[in-house]
Protein backbone atom coordinates (compact mmCIF):
# COMPACT_ATOMS: atom_id res chain seq x y z
CA UNK A 1 0.00 0.00 0.00
CA UNK A 2 1.40 3.38 -0.99
CA UNK A 3 2.18 5.97 1.69
CA UNK A 4 -0.37 8.36 0.18
CA UNK A 5 -3.12 5.71 0.31
CA UNK A 6 -2.28 4.94 3.93
CA UNK A 7 -2.45 8.65 4.79
CA UNK A 8 -5.83 8.93 3.09
CA UNK A 9 -7.31 5.91 4.91
CA UNK A 10 -5.76 7.15 8.14
CA UNK A 11 -7.53 10.47 7.68
CA UNK A 12 -10.85 8.70 7.04
CA UNK A 13 -10.33 6.52 10.14
CA UNK A 14 -9.37 9.46 12.36
CA UNK A 15 -12.20 11.77 11.41
CA UNK A 16 -15.04 9.24 11.21
CA UNK A 17 -13.99 8.00 14.65
CA UNK A 18 -13.52 11.45 16.17
CA UNK A 19 -16.87 12.79 14.99
CA UNK A 20 -18.74 9.79 16.34
CA UNK A 21 -16.63 9.15 19.48
CA UNK A 22 -18.77 10.95 22.03
CA UNK A 23 -22.00 9.36 20.79
CA UNK A 24 -20.45 5.91 20.45
CA UNK A 25 -19.27 6.14 24.05
CA UNK A 26 -22.82 7.09 25.05
CA UNK A 27 -24.21 4.13 23.06
CA UNK A 28 -21.70 1.67 24.51
CA UNK A 29 -22.13 2.90 28.08
CA UNK A 30 -25.94 2.86 27.94
CA UNK A 31 -25.93 -0.38 25.96
CA UNK A 32 -24.04 -2.18 28.72
CA UNK A 33 -26.86 -2.09 31.34
CA UNK A 34 -29.47 -2.58 28.61
CA UNK A 35 -28.02 -6.04 27.89
CA UNK A 36 -29.18 -7.02 31.38
CA UNK A 37 -32.31 -4.85 31.56
CA UNK A 38 -34.54 -7.82 32.47
CA UNK A 39 -32.27 -8.77 35.37
CA UNK A 40 -31.83 -5.14 36.51
CA UNK A 41 -35.60 -4.49 36.38
CA UNK A 42 -36.18 -7.64 38.41
CA UNK A 43 -33.53 -6.64 40.93
CA UNK A 44 -34.97 -3.15 41.35
CA UNK A 45 -38.54 -4.44 41.57
CA UNK A 46 -39.72 -2.98 38.25
CA UNK A 47 -40.39 -6.33 36.56
CA UNK A 48 -43.98 -7.57 37.07
CA UNK A 49 -44.04 -11.09 38.51
CA UNK A 50 -46.86 -13.53 37.63
CA UNK A 51 -48.76 -15.20 40.45
CA UNK A 52 -48.06 -18.83 41.26
CA UNK A 53 -50.78 -21.13 39.84
CA UNK A 54 -50.77 -24.91 39.92
CA UNK A 55 -51.48 -25.76 36.26
CA UNK A 56 -54.57 -23.53 36.13
CA UNK A 57 -56.14 -22.65 32.77
CA UNK A 58 -55.18 -19.31 31.28
CA UNK A 59 -57.81 -16.60 31.01
CA UNK A 60 -59.22 -16.02 27.53
CA UNK A 61 -57.92 -12.99 25.60
CA UNK A 62 -61.27 -11.16 25.92
CA UNK A 63 -61.19 -11.51 29.73
CA UNK A 64 -57.69 -10.03 29.77
CA UNK A 65 -58.84 -7.19 27.49
CA UNK A 66 -61.78 -6.45 29.81
CA UNK A 67 -59.44 -6.41 32.81
CA UNK A 68 -57.11 -3.99 31.00
CA UNK A 69 -59.98 -1.62 30.17
CA UNK A 70 -61.29 -1.82 33.73
CA UNK A 71 -57.82 -0.90 35.02
CA UNK A 72 -57.73 2.22 32.83
CA UNK A 73 -61.29 3.67 32.68
CA UNK A 74 -62.09 6.05 29.83
CA UNK A 75 -59.20 4.86 27.68
CA UNK A 76 -59.08 2.41 24.76
CA UNK A 77 -56.98 -0.64 24.00
CA UNK A 78 -54.27 -0.31 21.37
CA UNK A 79 -52.42 -3.63 21.71
CA UNK A 80 -52.47 -6.85 23.69
CA UNK A 81 -49.27 -8.90 23.58
CA UNK A 82 -48.06 -12.32 24.71
CA UNK A 83 -44.32 -12.68 25.38
CA UNK A 84 -42.89 -16.09 24.45
CA UNK A 85 -40.43 -15.92 27.36
CA UNK A 86 -43.04 -14.76 29.92
CA UNK A 87 -45.97 -17.18 29.50
CA UNK A 88 -47.50 -16.13 32.82
CA UNK A 89 -47.93 -12.51 31.76
CA UNK A 90 -50.14 -10.71 29.22
CA UNK A 91 -49.27 -7.09 28.41
CA UNK A 92 -51.89 -4.49 27.47
CA UNK A 93 -51.34 -1.06 25.93
CA UNK A 94 -54.06 1.52 26.57
CA UNK A 95 -54.20 5.06 25.24
CA UNK A 96 -56.50 8.07 25.05
CA UNK A 97 -57.36 7.22 21.42
CA UNK A 98 -56.83 4.16 19.17
CA UNK A 99 -54.20 6.11 17.18
CA UNK A 100 -52.70 7.77 20.28
CA UNK A 101 -48.96 8.52 20.29
CA UNK A 102 -46.71 5.78 21.75
CA UNK A 103 -45.43 8.18 24.43
CA UNK A 104 -48.99 8.58 25.77
CA UNK A 105 -49.61 4.84 26.03
CA UNK A 106 -49.94 3.10 29.40
CA UNK A 107 -48.38 -0.35 29.38
CA UNK A 108 -49.51 -2.75 32.10
CA UNK A 109 -48.88 -6.41 32.83
CA UNK A 110 -51.70 -8.78 33.82
CA UNK A 111 -51.54 -12.28 35.21
CA UNK A 112 -52.29 -14.71 32.36
CA UNK A 113 -54.48 -16.89 34.64
CA UNK A 114 -56.20 -14.59 37.14
CA UNK A 115 -55.95 -11.38 34.99
CA UNK A 116 -54.85 -9.57 38.13
CA UNK A 117 -53.03 -6.30 37.43
CA UNK A 118 -49.35 -6.99 38.10
CA UNK A 119 -48.05 -3.48 37.53
CA UNK A 120 -46.70 -1.12 34.90
CA UNK A 121 -44.16 -2.26 32.29
CA UNK A 122 -41.18 -0.31 30.98
CA UNK A 123 -40.81 2.11 33.87
CA UNK A 124 -37.94 2.83 36.24
CA UNK A 125 -34.34 3.86 35.65
CA UNK A 126 -33.87 1.51 32.70
CA UNK A 127 -36.42 3.54 30.72
CA UNK A 128 -34.12 6.58 31.00
CA UNK A 129 -31.15 4.48 29.87
CA UNK A 130 -33.20 3.13 26.97
CA UNK A 131 -34.30 6.60 25.85
CA UNK A 132 -30.70 7.83 26.01
CA UNK A 133 -29.60 4.83 23.95
CA UNK A 134 -32.30 5.04 21.29
CA UNK A 135 -32.92 8.75 20.71
CA UNK A 136 -31.28 10.84 23.48
CA UNK A 137 -34.79 12.17 24.32
CA UNK A 138 -34.88 13.84 20.89
CA UNK A 139 -37.53 11.66 19.23
CA UNK A 140 -37.21 10.59 15.62
CA UNK A 141 -34.53 13.22 14.88
CA UNK A 142 -32.40 11.81 17.71
CA UNK A 143 -32.85 8.28 16.38
CA UNK A 144 -31.80 9.23 12.86
CA UNK A 145 -28.84 11.20 14.20
CA UNK A 146 -27.62 8.20 16.19
CA UNK A 147 -28.14 6.09 13.07
CA UNK A 148 -25.84 8.46 11.18
CA UNK A 149 -23.27 8.08 13.98
CA UNK A 150 -23.60 4.32 13.57
CA UNK A 151 -22.81 4.64 9.87
CA UNK A 152 -19.70 6.71 10.70
CA UNK A 153 -18.75 3.95 13.15
CA UNK A 154 -19.04 1.39 10.33
CA UNK A 155 -16.79 3.52 8.10
CA UNK A 156 -14.30 3.85 10.99
CA UNK A 157 -14.28 0.06 11.39
CA UNK A 158 -13.74 -0.61 7.68
CA UNK A 159 -10.95 1.99 7.46
CA UNK A 160 -9.43 0.50 10.63
CA UNK A 161 -9.35 -2.93 8.97
CA UNK A 162 -7.64 -1.43 5.90
CA UNK A 163 -5.03 0.23 8.13
CA UNK A 164 -4.42 -2.93 10.15
CA UNK A 165 -2.21 -4.37 7.42
CA UNK A 166 0.33 -1.52 7.05
CA UNK A 167 0.50 -1.01 10.82
CA UNK A 168 0.98 -4.62 11.88
CA UNK A 169 2.61 -6.45 8.96
CA UNK A 170 5.99 -6.50 10.70
CA UNK A 171 4.55 -7.88 13.93
CA UNK A 172 3.29 -11.29 14.97
CA UNK A 173 -0.44 -11.47 15.65
CA UNK A 174 -1.35 -10.20 19.14
CA UNK A 175 2.01 -8.54 19.77
CA UNK A 176 1.98 -5.95 22.55
CA UNK A 177 5.26 -4.08 22.64
CA UNK A 178 5.54 -3.71 26.40
CA UNK A 179 9.04 -2.27 26.32
CA UNK A 180 8.03 0.51 23.94
CA UNK A 181 6.51 3.89 24.80
CA UNK A 182 3.04 4.02 26.33
CA UNK A 183 1.56 5.35 23.07
CA UNK A 184 2.91 2.34 21.16
CA UNK A 185 1.56 -0.08 23.76
CA UNK A 186 -1.89 1.47 23.47
CA UNK A 187 -1.62 1.40 19.68
CA UNK A 188 -0.98 -2.35 19.89
CA UNK A 189 -3.96 -2.88 22.21
CA UNK A 190 -6.13 -0.67 20.00
CA UNK A 191 -5.16 -2.69 16.92
CA UNK A 192 -5.54 -6.07 18.61
CA UNK A 193 -8.90 -5.45 20.30
CA UNK A 194 -10.20 -3.60 17.26
CA UNK A 195 -9.35 -6.38 14.82
CA UNK A 196 -10.57 -9.31 16.94
CA UNK A 197 -13.92 -7.64 17.66
CA UNK A 198 -14.38 -6.28 14.14
CA UNK A 199 -17.14 -8.66 13.01
CA UNK A 200 -19.17 -8.24 16.20
CA UNK A 201 -18.77 -4.44 16.20
CA UNK A 202 -19.79 -4.22 12.55
CA UNK A 203 -22.86 -6.43 13.07
CA UNK A 204 -24.00 -4.63 16.22
CA UNK A 205 -23.26 -1.21 14.70
CA UNK A 206 -25.10 -1.84 11.44
CA UNK A 207 -28.08 -3.58 13.06
CA UNK A 208 -28.32 -0.57 15.38
CA UNK A 209 -28.44 1.68 12.31
CA UNK A 210 -31.22 -0.47 10.81
CA UNK A 211 -33.15 -0.19 14.09
CA UNK A 212 -33.07 3.61 13.87
CA UNK A 213 -34.98 3.32 10.59
CA UNK A 214 -37.77 1.21 12.16
CA UNK A 215 -40.40 3.94 12.10
CA UNK A 216 -39.59 4.89 8.51
CA UNK A 217 -39.88 1.24 7.50
CA UNK A 218 -43.19 0.82 9.32
CA UNK A 219 -44.55 3.96 7.66
CA UNK A 220 -43.47 2.57 4.29
CA UNK A 221 -45.20 -0.75 5.04
CA UNK A 222 -48.37 1.03 6.12
CA UNK A 223 -48.37 3.21 3.01
CA UNK A 224 -47.85 0.28 0.62
CA UNK A 225 -48.54 -3.27 1.86
CA UNK A 226 -51.08 -2.48 4.57
CA UNK A 227 -52.83 0.02 2.30
CA UNK A 228 -53.26 -2.67 -0.38
CA UNK A 229 -54.45 -5.19 2.24
CA UNK A 230 -57.23 -2.88 3.44
CA UNK A 231 -58.05 -1.41 0.01
CA UNK A 232 -61.22 -3.56 -0.42
CA UNK A 233 -62.56 -2.03 2.81
CA UNK A 234 -61.96 1.59 1.77
CA UNK A 235 -64.64 3.95 3.03
CA UNK A 236 -65.92 1.58 5.69
CA UNK A 237 -66.39 3.33 9.04
CA UNK A 238 -64.60 2.19 12.19
CA UNK A 239 -66.43 -0.73 13.82
CA UNK A 240 -69.29 0.28 16.12
CA UNK A 241 -69.04 -2.92 18.13
CA UNK A 242 -65.77 -4.82 18.25
CA UNK A 243 -65.61 -8.56 17.61
CA UNK A 244 -64.71 -10.72 20.60
CA UNK A 245 -60.95 -10.96 21.06
CA UNK A 246 -61.37 -14.70 21.68
CA UNK A 247 -62.81 -15.11 18.15
CA UNK A 248 -60.07 -12.95 16.70
CA UNK A 249 -57.33 -15.10 18.29
CA UNK A 250 -58.96 -18.40 17.22
CA UNK A 251 -59.40 -17.26 13.62
CA UNK A 252 -55.89 -15.83 13.42
CA UNK A 253 -54.49 -19.19 14.61
CA UNK A 254 -56.55 -21.02 12.00
CA UNK A 255 -55.26 -18.68 9.30
CA UNK A 256 -51.62 -19.23 10.30
CA UNK A 257 -51.34 -22.89 11.40
CA UNK A 258 -48.40 -23.71 13.65
CA UNK A 259 -48.01 -20.09 14.70
CA UNK A 260 -48.93 -18.28 17.91
CA UNK A 261 -50.19 -14.74 18.42
CA UNK A 262 -47.36 -12.40 19.40
CA UNK A 263 -49.57 -9.31 19.65
CA UNK A 264 -52.87 -7.94 18.44
CA UNK A 265 -53.34 -4.37 17.25
CA UNK A 266 -56.84 -3.01 17.78
CA UNK A 267 -58.68 -1.17 14.98
CA UNK A 268 -57.24 2.32 14.55
CA UNK A 269 -53.89 1.54 16.19
CA UNK A 270 -50.76 2.54 14.25
CA UNK A 271 -50.09 -1.07 13.15
CA UNK A 272 -53.44 -1.62 11.44
CA UNK A 273 -56.35 0.12 9.69
CA UNK A 274 -59.27 1.87 11.39
CA UNK A 275 -61.54 -1.09 10.58
CA UNK A 276 -59.33 -4.12 11.29
CA UNK A 277 -57.67 -6.06 14.02
CA UNK A 278 -54.14 -7.09 13.05
CA UNK A 279 -52.83 -10.26 14.69
CA UNK A 280 -49.07 -10.55 14.37
CA UNK A 281 -48.17 -14.24 14.40
CA UNK A 282 -44.84 -15.82 15.34
CA UNK A 283 -43.28 -19.26 14.87
CA UNK A 284 -41.66 -21.37 17.57
CA UNK A 285 -37.98 -21.44 16.56
CA UNK A 286 -35.42 -18.79 17.47
CA UNK A 287 -35.63 -17.39 13.92
CA UNK A 288 -39.35 -17.76 13.13
CA UNK A 289 -40.27 -16.35 16.54
CA UNK A 290 -38.79 -13.07 15.27
CA UNK A 291 -40.32 -13.10 11.79
CA UNK A 292 -43.86 -11.90 12.41
CA UNK A 293 -46.68 -12.56 9.97
CA UNK A 294 -49.66 -10.18 10.04
CA UNK A 295 -53.23 -11.50 9.78
CA UNK A 296 -55.82 -8.83 9.12
CA UNK A 297 -59.27 -9.49 10.63
CA UNK A 298 -62.53 -7.59 10.28
CA UNK A 299 -63.08 -5.42 13.36
CA UNK A 300 -66.80 -6.25 13.64
CA UNK A 301 -67.07 -9.87 12.51
CA UNK A 302 -63.56 -11.13 13.28
CA UNK A 303 -63.34 -12.74 9.83
CA UNK A 304 -59.91 -13.03 8.24
CA UNK A 305 -59.54 -10.30 5.63
CA UNK A 306 -55.97 -10.94 4.45
CA UNK A 307 -52.73 -12.59 5.45
CA UNK A 308 -49.32 -12.06 3.93
CA UNK A 309 -45.68 -12.16 4.94
CA UNK A 310 -43.91 -8.94 5.86
CA UNK A 311 -41.75 -7.41 3.10
CA UNK A 312 -38.02 -8.14 3.10
CA UNK A 313 -37.02 -4.81 4.64
CA UNK A 314 -39.25 -5.40 7.68
CA UNK A 315 -38.01 -8.99 8.00
CA UNK A 316 -34.46 -7.58 7.95
CA UNK A 317 -35.47 -5.16 10.69
CA UNK A 318 -36.94 -7.96 12.84
CA UNK A 319 -33.84 -10.16 12.39
CA UNK A 320 -31.54 -7.23 13.10
CA UNK A 321 -33.06 -6.73 16.55
CA UNK A 322 -31.71 -9.86 18.31
CA UNK A 323 -28.37 -9.38 16.54
CA UNK A 324 -28.21 -5.93 18.10
CA UNK A 325 -29.55 -6.79 21.57
CA UNK A 326 -27.70 -10.11 22.05
CA UNK A 327 -30.67 -11.51 23.96
CA UNK A 328 -31.14 -14.72 21.99
CA UNK A 329 -28.44 -17.00 23.39
CA UNK A 330 -29.08 -17.19 27.11
CA UNK A 331 -27.12 -15.58 29.94
CA UNK A 332 -23.65 -16.68 28.70
CA UNK A 333 -24.19 -14.82 25.41
CA UNK A 334 -25.34 -11.75 27.36
CA UNK A 335 -22.12 -11.85 29.40
CA UNK A 336 -20.04 -12.20 26.22
CA UNK A 337 -22.03 -9.31 24.69
CA UNK A 338 -21.20 -7.17 27.72
CA UNK A 339 -17.50 -8.11 27.50
CA UNK A 340 -17.43 -7.20 23.78
CA UNK A 341 -19.20 -3.92 24.58
CA UNK A 342 -16.57 -3.17 27.24
CA UNK A 343 -13.79 -4.00 24.75
CA UNK A 344 -15.38 -1.60 22.25
CA UNK A 345 -15.25 1.12 24.92
CA UNK A 346 -11.51 0.37 25.30
CA UNK A 347 -11.02 0.64 21.52
CA UNK A 348 -12.87 3.98 21.37
CA UNK A 349 -11.05 5.32 24.45
CA UNK A 350 -7.63 4.20 23.24
CA UNK A 351 -8.31 5.68 19.80
CA UNK A 352 -9.05 9.03 21.40
CA UNK A 353 -5.93 8.74 23.58
CA UNK A 354 -3.76 7.90 20.51
CA UNK A 355 -5.09 10.95 18.66
CA UNK A 356 -4.39 13.27 21.62
CA UNK A 357 -0.94 11.73 22.21
CA UNK A 358 -0.01 12.14 18.54
CA UNK A 359 -1.06 15.76 18.53
CA UNK A 360 0.96 16.39 21.71
CA UNK A 361 3.98 14.74 20.13
CA UNK A 362 3.61 16.83 17.00
CA UNK A 363 3.11 20.14 18.80
CA UNK A 364 6.72 20.57 20.12
CA UNK A 365 8.15 19.43 16.78
CA UNK A 366 6.05 22.03 14.97
CA UNK A 367 7.07 24.72 17.47
CA UNK A 368 10.73 23.84 16.95
CA UNK A 369 10.41 24.05 13.18
CA UNK A 370 8.68 27.40 13.53
CA UNK A 371 11.39 28.69 15.89
CA UNK A 372 14.12 27.51 13.51
CA UNK A 373 12.44 29.33 10.63
CA UNK A 374 11.97 32.46 12.76
CA UNK A 375 15.72 32.69 13.56
CA UNK A 376 16.61 35.13 10.80
CA UNK A 377 20.36 35.81 10.56
CA UNK A 378 21.11 39.40 11.48
Amino acid at each position, binding site marked *: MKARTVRLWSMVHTWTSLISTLFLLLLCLTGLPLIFHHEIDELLGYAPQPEAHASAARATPQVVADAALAADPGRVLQYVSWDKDEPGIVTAFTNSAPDGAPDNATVRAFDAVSTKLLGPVGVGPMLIVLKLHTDMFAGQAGKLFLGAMGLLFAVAIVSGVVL*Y*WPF*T*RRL*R*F*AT*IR*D*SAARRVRWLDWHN*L*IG*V*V*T*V*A*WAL*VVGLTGVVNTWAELMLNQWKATELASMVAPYAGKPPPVRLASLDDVVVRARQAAPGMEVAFIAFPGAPFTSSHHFAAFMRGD*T*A*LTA*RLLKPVLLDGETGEVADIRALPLYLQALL*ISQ*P*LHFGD*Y*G*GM*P*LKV*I*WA*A*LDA*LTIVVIGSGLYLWVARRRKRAPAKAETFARRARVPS
Partner: protein
Amino acid sequence: MHGFSDRARLWTRVLAAPGLLAAATITGLLAALLWGTVGQYVAWVTVGAPVAVVAWVWVRRRPQKTGPFSPTMRGK
Protein backbone atom coordinates in the same frame (compact mmCIF):
# COMPACT_ATOMS: atom_id res chain seq x y z
CA MET B 1 7.39 -16.29 -7.87
CA HIS B 2 9.25 -15.96 -4.60
CA GLY B 3 7.97 -12.42 -4.13
CA PHE B 4 4.40 -13.62 -4.59
CA SER B 5 4.69 -16.55 -2.15
CA ASP B 6 6.48 -14.37 0.42
CA ARG B 7 3.74 -11.81 0.16
CA ALA B 8 1.05 -14.49 0.46
CA ARG B 9 2.79 -15.90 3.53
CA LEU B 10 2.96 -12.42 5.06
CA TRP B 11 -0.73 -11.82 4.34
CA THR B 12 -1.60 -15.15 5.96
CA ARG B 13 0.56 -14.42 9.01
CA VAL B 14 -1.00 -11.02 9.58
CA LEU B 15 -4.60 -11.62 8.55
CA ALA B 16 -5.30 -15.34 9.12
CA ALA B 17 -6.08 -15.08 12.83
CA PRO B 18 -8.31 -11.97 12.56
CA GLY B 19 -10.04 -13.53 9.54
CA LEU B 20 -10.73 -16.77 11.38
CA LEU B 21 -12.03 -14.90 14.42
CA ALA B 22 -14.34 -12.80 12.24
CA ALA B 23 -15.67 -15.93 10.52
CA ALA B 24 -16.17 -17.65 13.89
CA THR B 25 -18.04 -14.62 15.25
CA ILE B 26 -20.41 -14.45 12.28
CA THR B 27 -20.98 -18.23 12.46
CA GLY B 28 -21.84 -17.97 16.17
CA LEU B 29 -24.14 -14.98 15.72
CA LEU B 30 -26.14 -16.86 13.10
CA ALA B 31 -25.92 -20.26 14.84
CA ALA B 32 -27.85 -19.09 17.90
CA LEU B 33 -30.53 -17.69 15.62
CA LEU B 34 -30.83 -20.73 13.34
CA TRP B 35 -29.86 -23.87 15.25
CA GLY B 36 -31.73 -23.60 18.56
CA THR B 37 -30.01 -24.89 21.69
CA VAL B 38 -27.02 -26.40 19.85
CA GLY B 39 -26.58 -23.07 18.09
CA GLN B 40 -26.47 -21.33 21.46
CA TYR B 41 -23.55 -23.50 22.58
CA VAL B 42 -21.76 -22.79 19.29
CA ALA B 43 -22.38 -19.06 19.80
CA TRP B 44 -20.94 -19.07 23.32
CA VAL B 45 -17.68 -20.53 22.01
CA THR B 46 -17.33 -18.65 18.73
CA VAL B 47 -18.66 -15.21 19.72
CA GLY B 48 -16.68 -15.53 22.95
CA ALA B 49 -13.45 -16.35 21.07
CA PRO B 50 -12.36 -12.68 20.58
CA VAL B 51 -12.87 -12.05 24.31
CA ALA B 52 -10.82 -15.17 25.08
CA VAL B 53 -7.99 -14.00 22.77
CA VAL B 54 -7.82 -10.58 24.47
CA ALA B 55 -7.91 -12.22 27.92
CA TRP B 56 -5.19 -14.66 26.86
CA VAL B 57 -2.90 -11.84 25.63
CA TRP B 58 -3.57 -9.88 28.82
CA VAL B 59 -2.78 -12.83 31.08
CA ARG B 60 0.22 -13.94 29.01
CA ARG B 61 1.95 -10.55 29.19
CA ARG B 62 1.40 -9.97 32.92
CA PRO B 63 3.96 -12.48 34.22
CA GLN B 64 6.43 -11.26 31.58
CA LYS B 65 6.01 -7.73 32.79
CA THR B 66 6.30 -8.36 36.50
CA GLY B 67 8.24 -11.64 36.59
CA PRO B 68 11.79 -11.88 37.98
CA PHE B 69 13.35 -12.29 34.52
CA SER B 70 11.40 -9.57 32.79
CA PRO B 71 13.41 -7.04 30.74
CA THR B 72 12.10 -4.23 32.95
CA MET B 73 13.37 -5.90 36.12
CA ARG B 74 16.69 -6.80 34.54
CA GLY B 75 17.06 -3.23 33.36
CA LYS B 76 16.73 -2.04 36.92
